[in-house]
């Protein structure tokens, strides 16, 4: 009886997910986005493309780390030679950096707008267009109603959108599928080597619709995301506490 009830509940949950637009991975097509264990946090264990992700970057250092992580995701989204739009009011992104993350910088179209209002309009228009692989917009404030418009645009076109919340003042509810926060972590080098190691980030999923929020440590090594081994991470945080 108990077993039976659990079955029913899990089946109902799957149905609800399906109605909400999260289809289970089709056999033979499950290739993932390259984020490793982090993808398990999402419903059905699949990184939701065709929806909007919100990335918090209160400080420029975090914005830089976010740009890195996102470029790594974009590399997979733009694999088939697609183009993406980058909308912002005050752009700081340096295109040549994208090549480190396997994104061809000349496939990114930068749109500089004067006002946040125009940025939202441009993002909505971009999301409606099926000819783009992804749309990224740097937007400080967004209301629930505005985010709903974006969600409606995405639902028909299946374009992936990223909202970069630079220096956000107020974090309200949005329709975004996930809320991320990426912070830089000290890189690790093999003993005795000088210099700076591979970029390493603390990736926090603060909110995931129908998923399980959590926090992970990722490193970008040789054109792919590599999860940082847990013990090593613990030792490192131990070290940090000692030095800090």
């Amino acid at each position, binding site marked *: 009886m108990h077993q039976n009830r659990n079955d029913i509940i899990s089946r109902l949950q799957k149905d609800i997910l399906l109605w909400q637009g999260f289809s289970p991975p089709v056999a033979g097509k499950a290739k993932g986005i390259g984020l490793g264990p982090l993808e398990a946090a999402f419903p059905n264990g699949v990184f939701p493309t065709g929806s909007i992700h919100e990335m918090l970057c209160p400080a*420029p*250092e975090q*914005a*830089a*780390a976010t*740009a*890195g*992580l996102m*470029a790594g995701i974009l590399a997979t989204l*733009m*694999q*088939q*030679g*697609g*183009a993406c739009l980058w909308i912002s009011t005050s752009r*700081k*992104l*340096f*295109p*040549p*950096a*994208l*090549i*480190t*993350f396997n994104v*061809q*910088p*000349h*496939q*990114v*179209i*930068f*749109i*500089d*707008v*004067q006002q946040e209002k*125009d940025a939202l*309009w*441009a993002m909505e*228009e*971009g999301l409606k*267009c*099926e*000819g*783009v*692989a992804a749309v990224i917009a740097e937007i400080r404030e967004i209301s629930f109603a505005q985010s709903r418009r974006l969600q409606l645009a995405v639902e028909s076109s299946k374009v992936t959108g990223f909202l970069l919340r630079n220096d956000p003042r107020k974090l309200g509810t949005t329709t975004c599928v996930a809320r991320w926060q990426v912070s*830089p*972590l*000290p*890189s690790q*080098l093999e003993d005795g080597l*000088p*210099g*700076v*190691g591979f*970029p*390493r*980030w603390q990736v926090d999923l603060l909110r995931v619709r129908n998923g399980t929020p959590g926090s992970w440590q990722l490193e970008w090594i040789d054109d792919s995301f590599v999860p940082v081994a847990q013990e090593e991470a613990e030792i490192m945080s131990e070290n940090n506490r000692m*030095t*800090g």
Partner: protein
Amino acid sequence: MNKRFISLWFRHLLTDWLTLRRPELKGVPFIITTPVQNRVVVTATNLLVEAQGVTVGMPAADAKAIVPDLVVIDEIPGQAAKLIKALGEWCIRYSPLVAADLPDGLILDVSGCAHLWGGERAYLKEIVTRLISKGYDVRGAMADTAGTAWAIARFGKIKPIIGPGMQTDALLTLPPAALRLEPAILERLQKLGFYTIKSFMGIGRSVLRRRFGQELLLRIDQALGNENEPLQLLHPVEPYTERLPCLEPIRTATAIEIAIKTLLENLCRRLQSEGMGMRTAILKGYRVDGRIIQAAIGTSKATHHTGHLFKLFELKIATLAPGLGIELFTLEAPKVEEVEPEQEALWSPEGCSLEDSSLTELLDKLANKIGAGNIHRYLPQERYWPEQSIKPALSVKDKPATTWRTGRPRPSLLLNRPEKIEVTFRLPDYPPMLFIYKGEVHHINKADGPERIEREWWADQGLHRDYYMIEDNEGRRYWLFRLGHYTDVESAWYLHGYFA
């Protein structure tokens, strides 16, 4: 743009042509005659006859008396006009705008053509020598106006190319006939002792008009460039425009939409049949109260797709104030280019490329709202200075000429202007130990560098930069540089970017 014209004068058009047709006439004195009111008059002479004093307009009997072994040939009516037209067609290779200047000349609008032949001198020389080598005795001149070029070709003695704005100086010493005037006016000028243009140029306009009529003033203005001179082109350029007069003045947005649709359909049908597409379009509405309202659009790729163009205009309808009503709409496409035929992809990849039509249509839409200058795409440039390592792409079709450099890491965020920081560092070339930026102290744990980037000495002067990639104890990564060499005086350090 500054207009330039070439006037070509065929001095012995008919006789040259006949010599070409009938080689046995070479070296033989001959004239061409035509009957005028019961007598036969000379209409063309060749060089040999001319040297002996026979002129055009002289009775043929007199000419025969002067030159004993003269050959006389009857004129074929309309032959000169036919020849000029054929020569004009031949000249299309030098400029698309060629006009016949009957009875014995051509006028070419050569604005913006000369540089293709290596300058105006080489251009004019090329045209004239080619015509002379064909066997035509031709003189050519170039000036800012067709009138001056005409005058210099026929009467100029010093140089055939008149520089921009030098028309007055060039004309002053020429006889009044250089102004293309009627014989009656010329005769009157001659009688009054005006032998050069200089002698009457300074006289008041009203006086000249009273004595010689409006034509003299018109010709002077045309030669100097104060008056526009329409040319009868051999191949007139038909502008891409459409008109739509309305039965009743139009005031509603729906009606304007219908008008735009109708105009676009008509214009696009023509463009499609010619394989052309528009890059810009201007819609004008003539209002009842005499004012003209207009809206302009631009596209990033030549197109004749009505639906797409209508969407671009749709955004502008709100800006059109119909007032009391619009009586007439015109739509013109000032910039038209050839359309590249789109190929249906037999196998379309999942993704999409930059040339995807839905993407270019999206970009057009964005460009029309926020301005085309605000949309950028970057290509790599083979320069090391970070700010100059990228260059904006000019169109969606531009492909990178070189690959993106991957050798040295570049920061994901780059500050528009490097910001000054305070640092503590070891001498002379060690990376800093700590730096202070915006009041926060960053203790540096790891560092990489220096990477010295020299300024491009041929482009700008200044000090080089020594870049360091550094990581502070919280794991935040920065791109710092020191300007110039380390010296005893304070070295300037800057923060230039953030690494991922």
